[in-house]
């Protein structure tokens, strides 16, 4: 339904643009501060543009961060793929092959995504130590896969509920079994849901801090920990933490800028609807 631009629309447009500017203030401040030389960073002049651009903070931040970005990439990609894959299978089972007790199992699974991790932290690292998984990326991947299962299961289950049972029955009559139905019916329809789940999981895992700081040795630390090291250590001036923040944020921001549409579209289908 198309309406002509009215006073109302102009007011809406203006207000939205003003709010957008406000939302971008932290970006301005971050980029601005990151490009100043340490000597120029000062509370009273925080808003002024740098007198000359100092890219050195980015060079320093990059040389320090490169290995941790690699860790985060391995971690986030592996854990996202595994948890999404398992979530897809779980969702398929819960949705299309209800078994005795599955009605109880679902809420029990979903509950796992809401727990405060402080309530499991100590037993968790003791378990990882005992299984010799502590400290490296495999252990951290395992942790993120397990605690990612509830949300991926839930999201896929909601998506698969949209696929009519008649379609499955038709395939079954054609002789497809459990695996065949999944392979030929569910999988081809799983593209958009997979994207939503992957976007969600990737950003969650990339941004996670508590597990990252307590469960890794230095050579396996993800980027959030490296950033906290840079910002919270004896680092003196604000240019380095700001440049580091930009580097740490780039991958997930890029995902939201380029794939945000899918995410918005998927949200309703996924996390809201039971």
């Amino acid at each position, binding site marked *: 339904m198309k309406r002509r631009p009215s006073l109302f629309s102009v007011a809406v447009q203006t207000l939205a643009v003003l709010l957008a500017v406000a939302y971008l203030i932290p970006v301005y401040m971050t980029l601005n501060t990151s490009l100043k030389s*340490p000597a120029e960073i000062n509370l009273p002049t925080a808003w002024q543009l740098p007198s000359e651009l100092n890219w050195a903070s980015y060079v320093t931040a990059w040389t320090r961060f490169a290995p941790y970005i690699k860790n985060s990439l391995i971690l986030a990609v592996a854990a996202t793929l595994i948890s999404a894959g398992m979530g897809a299978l779980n969702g398929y089972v819960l949705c299309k092959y209800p078994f005795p007790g599955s009605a109880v199992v679902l809420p029990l699974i979903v509950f796992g995504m809401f727990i405060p991790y402080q309530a499991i932290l100590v037993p968790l690292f003791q378990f990882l130590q005992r299984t010799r998984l502590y400290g490296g990326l495999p252990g951290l991947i395992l942790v993120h896969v397990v605690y990612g299962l509830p949300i991926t299961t839930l999201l896929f289950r909601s998506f698969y509920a949209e696929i009519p049972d008649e379609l499955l029955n038709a395939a079954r009559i054609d002789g497809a079994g459990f695996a065949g139905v999944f392979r030929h019916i569910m999988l081809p329809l799983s593209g958009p849901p997979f994207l939503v789940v992957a976007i969600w999981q990737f950003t969650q895992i990339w941004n996670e801090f508590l597990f990252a700081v307590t469960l890794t040795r230095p050579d396996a630390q993800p980027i959030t920990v490296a950033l906290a090291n840079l910002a919270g250590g004896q680092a*003196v001036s604000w240019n380095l933490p700001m440049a580091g923040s930009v580097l740490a944020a780039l991958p997930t921001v890029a995902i939201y800028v380029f794939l945000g549409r899918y995410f918005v579209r998927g949200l309703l289908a996924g996390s809201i609807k039971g």
Partner: protein
Amino acid sequence: MTRSMMVKLAALALILALACVPAGAAVSGNLEIFSWWAGDEGPALEALIAKYEATYPAARVINSTVTGGAGVNAKAVLKTRMLGGDPPDTFQVHAGQELIGTWVVAGRMEDLTFLYEEEGWMNVFPAGLLKLLSTDEGIWSVPVNIHRSNVLWYVPENLNKWGVKVPATWQEFLEIAPTLQAKGVVPLSLGENWTATHLWECVAVAAMGPEKWDQLWAGKLSWKSPEVIEAWKLFGEVIKYTNADAPSLSWQQATDMVVQGQAAFNVMGDWAAGYMATTLKLEPGVGFGWAASPGTNGVFVMLSDSFGLPVGCPNRENAIAWLKMLGSREAQDIFNPLKGSISARIDSDMSLYNKYLQSAAADWRTNVIAGSLAHGVVANERFMNDFATVMEIFLQTGNAEAAANAAEAVAIQSGVITR
């Protein structure tokens, strides 16, 4: 050259070669060092690592640094690992109760008395320092440096401009503070929460004197005694003249306030000298001046970073080689000028140190030594953790008696007082 001499020389060369090769050969593989030194303090540690790797070419150092969260992150990682029976080869720890109260009582450290005896360190480290590193059962770590906690920093030129002198006592400070405030200058700059505890210890040592301070930690003076309550009251007076935005500032930003003329004084450990001299490129004595914090002239409130040997560490020989190196005069004189601290040994080469550090070293040899609370020397970790709450109670309410009562309760619960 006679033939016998040739033989002797050859034999000597062989012995030297044999003596050297095994030393270098025994130390191979990894050495994992756990510390919270990064940023400005990184280069000093890296210099030590470079020296170690040059001495033992077959060894590879894994530098595990965890910083941030006011030191809590490093503790979280270290404890997570130790609880799982996965210690690093050696780790940084504040000498004193932070080491003893957590790790020694838990039986997680090796006694290093053998190393002190082999290396002749009993005589090169001051007796007062050795006492802090030891219990009746042994000596538990090797100190690499000495920092002074009770230092007052200022810019001499600014003080002249404002017409004030460096206060020798807190009473003098309280007299000049209103004058400074009237000129729009913050009399004393303060930073985030641990710097308040740092200031408290400097005020408390001034208020009760170093003997009573020691008695407090020996459990012989009650936390509810009039001396301690007086200290809280004096502290309450002093913080009235600090900046309101203190919790938002790092200690460096608090130092910046003095350097930029927004504040007259700042009480901070002498790592501030390293910050001003190295990072801000100010000349000690000209760009910035220093004095013992008010009322503590002749007292050296010290803290020391040290490294210990965890029981069951994977590369014990390498760790021992590292500790041996740390205790050497040469390593200490490489590390400390870069770190902005003084050598823990009494025989260091003072020409390597800047003007501030030379004065600190002179005081270290003559002053009464007291241990720092804020930096883990006199109090165990449980006390320190709960003392942060006591400090918050006081900052919120300003009630000296309530703070004293709370501190007494903390002292009992954490075992500082065993009655």
